[in-house]
């Protein structure tokens, strides 16, 4: 039991650590940001989670295209779904944060636009999937689409936002993790608490959904 589920417990303790140390720990005092710098543990962690889930999703899509196993398709879909949930949460929390630091919920910042476009591309993945009634065809075409959707992540969230001027920290470099903005005590909470904690939580939720989907697949096959 513990052998199989220890990472769920780890996720709990990492998030417990993030929530307590994230609020009680000292943070560097920065103008404009003030205490909102603590959003790093929550808002930025959402984006990291999303990227990880999309990477896992595309790996399963490629696996599906190679081996034609329906379970791979289910994994790809559910990881993409959790990725979208995390991405939407990142977008919403980001715009709340932007309201109190940049002055507006939405200011057409390249990073906001890029993230929104990336999410729309992934939403189209589900539209495409659900519009095809033939299960096999739907899985195959959406797996191919997923590879393209993943490829679009590169320009929309990894390249263009790094090249253009932006309100977002690290406009001309690495967003959010600049040494000018955060210090080592924040980095520990971020890398060892928030990122693995939130990601493992997302993986757990995804496995719950994939297990349900696998059950209904089995039910369909064997009646």
């Amino acid at each position, binding site marked *: 039991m513990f052998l199989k589920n220890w990472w769920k417990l780890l996720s709990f303790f990492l998030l417990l650590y993030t929530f*307590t140390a994230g609020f009680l720990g000292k943070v560097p*005092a*920065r103008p404009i940001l003030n205490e909102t710098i603590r959003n790093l543990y929550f808002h930025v962690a959402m984006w990291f989670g999303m990227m990880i889930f999309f990477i896992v999703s595309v790996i399963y899509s490629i696996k599906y295209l190679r081996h034609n196993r329906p379970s791979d398709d289910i994994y790809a879909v559910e990881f993409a779904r959790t990725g979208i949930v995390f991405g939407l949460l990142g977008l919403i929390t980001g715009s709340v944060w932007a309201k109190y630091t940049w002055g507006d919920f939405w200011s057409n910042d390249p990073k906001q636009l890029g993230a929104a476009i990336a999410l729309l591309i992934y939403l189209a993945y589900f539209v495409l999937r659900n519009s095809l009634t033939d299960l096999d065809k739907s899985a195959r075409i959406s797996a191919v689409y997923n590879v393209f959707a993943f490829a679009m992540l590169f320009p929309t969230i990894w390249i263009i936002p790094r090249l253009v001027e932006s309100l977002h920290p690290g406009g001309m470099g690495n967003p959010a993790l600049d040494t000018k903005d955060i210090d080592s005590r924040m980095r*520990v909470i971020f890398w060892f608490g928030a990122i693995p904690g939130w990601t493992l939580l997302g993986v757990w939720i995804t496995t*719950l959904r994939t297990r349900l989907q696998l059950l209904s697949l089995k039910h369909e096959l064997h009646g």
Partner: protein
Amino acid sequence: MVKLSSRLCLSVFAMMLSFFVYAQDSLKDEKPQMAEAFRSSGKIYVVVAVLVIILIGLFLYLVNTDKKISRIEKNIK
């Protein structure tokens, strides 16, 4: 596997301890306004308490859902 996971947990825990070490030193630049009053009056603990309760609640719900799905998996097999 048990050894590996417990070793991993232990090393992560050790990294977390460094937070307490950092908590000892004071801020050098105090110009930007931080929520010092909220902190000194101790009310930040209220926020942390609320968040911890929500976190525990959410995880209990997840554990519950996980168990239910496991039961269905067993029944179908």
